């Protein structure tokens, strides 16, 4: 009986020793790359621009019409050291003698960018060759409200070669892409 008591106490001692390691929980969470781009509009996605004839002989055609109803929005998440850019291009053939100008307004909205991110490089003339107009995009989200979130896009026509201008109607598509640099 005495021996049983001694054995029991020894077991209790070793049980106590066996439970002294503090527990730890290892955690991991993978944040993935994200690249999403879209257009919003305060009106309609179909932009109509007209070159109007002059009212008086000797004057040039009027190309002052513009459209500023489109807003570019995007979300981006990148790995450290990676940046992205947004390019625009025309699918189709512009009317001869006419070029399509794209003005990009500075960002407004309630989104957020990684510091030193998302520079508007310049206003561009859209051609069939993709042209960068927002660069150094890292982590960013612009917000999603047309008219108050993103980059306002203004389309306008300019005469490039007066002699080539012909009357008529042309339909083109403007495409935007976001891609790693």
């Amino acid at each position, binding site marked *: 009986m005495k021996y049983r008591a001694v054995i029991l106490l020894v077991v209790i001692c070793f049980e*106590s020793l066996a*439970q002294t390691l503090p*527990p730890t929980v290892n955690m*991991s969470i993978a944040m*993935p790359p994200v690249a999403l781009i879209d257009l919003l509009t305060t009106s309609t996605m179909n932009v109509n621009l007209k070159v109007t004839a002059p009212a008086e002989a000797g004057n040039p055609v009027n190309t002052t019409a513009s459209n500023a109803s489109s807003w570019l929005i995007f979300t*981006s*998440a990148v790995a450290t050291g990676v940046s992205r850019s947004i390019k625009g291009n025309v699918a189709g053939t512009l009317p001869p003698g006419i070029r399509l100008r794209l003005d990009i307004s500075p960002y407004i909205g309630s989104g957020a960018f990684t510091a030193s991110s998302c520079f508007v490089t310049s206003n561009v003339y859209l051609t069939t060759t993709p042209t960068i107009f927002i660069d150094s995009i890292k982590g960013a989200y612009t917000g999603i409200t047309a008219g108050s979130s993103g980059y306002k896009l203004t389309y306008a026509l300019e005469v490039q070669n007066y002699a080539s201008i012909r009357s008529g109607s042309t339909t083109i598509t403007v495409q935007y892409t976001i891609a790693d640099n």
Partner: protein
Amino acid sequence: MKTCLLIIFLFSLTGIMMAQTASVTITNGSQGANWNIPTLSSSITKAGKNYEHIETSALNHTVLKVNSLVFWNVSVQQTVSSNWDPLLKLYVRRSGDGTGLVTISGGSAFQQVTGASSLFFSGLLGLGFGRDNIPIQYKIEGLSVLLPAKTYTTTILFTISGL
């Protein structure tokens, strides 16, 4: 006489060891000792948006057992790691009381885990018995596309103090 002295010595030794070894352990093995999120539970489906959700574990992702003689406090802290971002806020709570006769209190609301040890929950009157099957739940807030895309890792450490 010798046997009596031996028994007294062992009782004393047992008391000392039990006093020194108030313990908290994970009883559901590697499942409870790891919380890995290789794929977020919700993705961004619309351009312009940021993440809007919180990653939350199962209610009983980790199951703890506490042993103590009289009273005890379980604290929690996060190991400071260069592979973690402070924008990611880690929370922990005790989602149930578990089983056992020992009283248990505190820790039922989510509290943020930081690099500093903070009181999580406590108990009284262990008398050498434990509180078992204490379910622990976690959540991570602050998910953002502003964080560099990579896998973030950290470790949560539970410690017990008491008698």
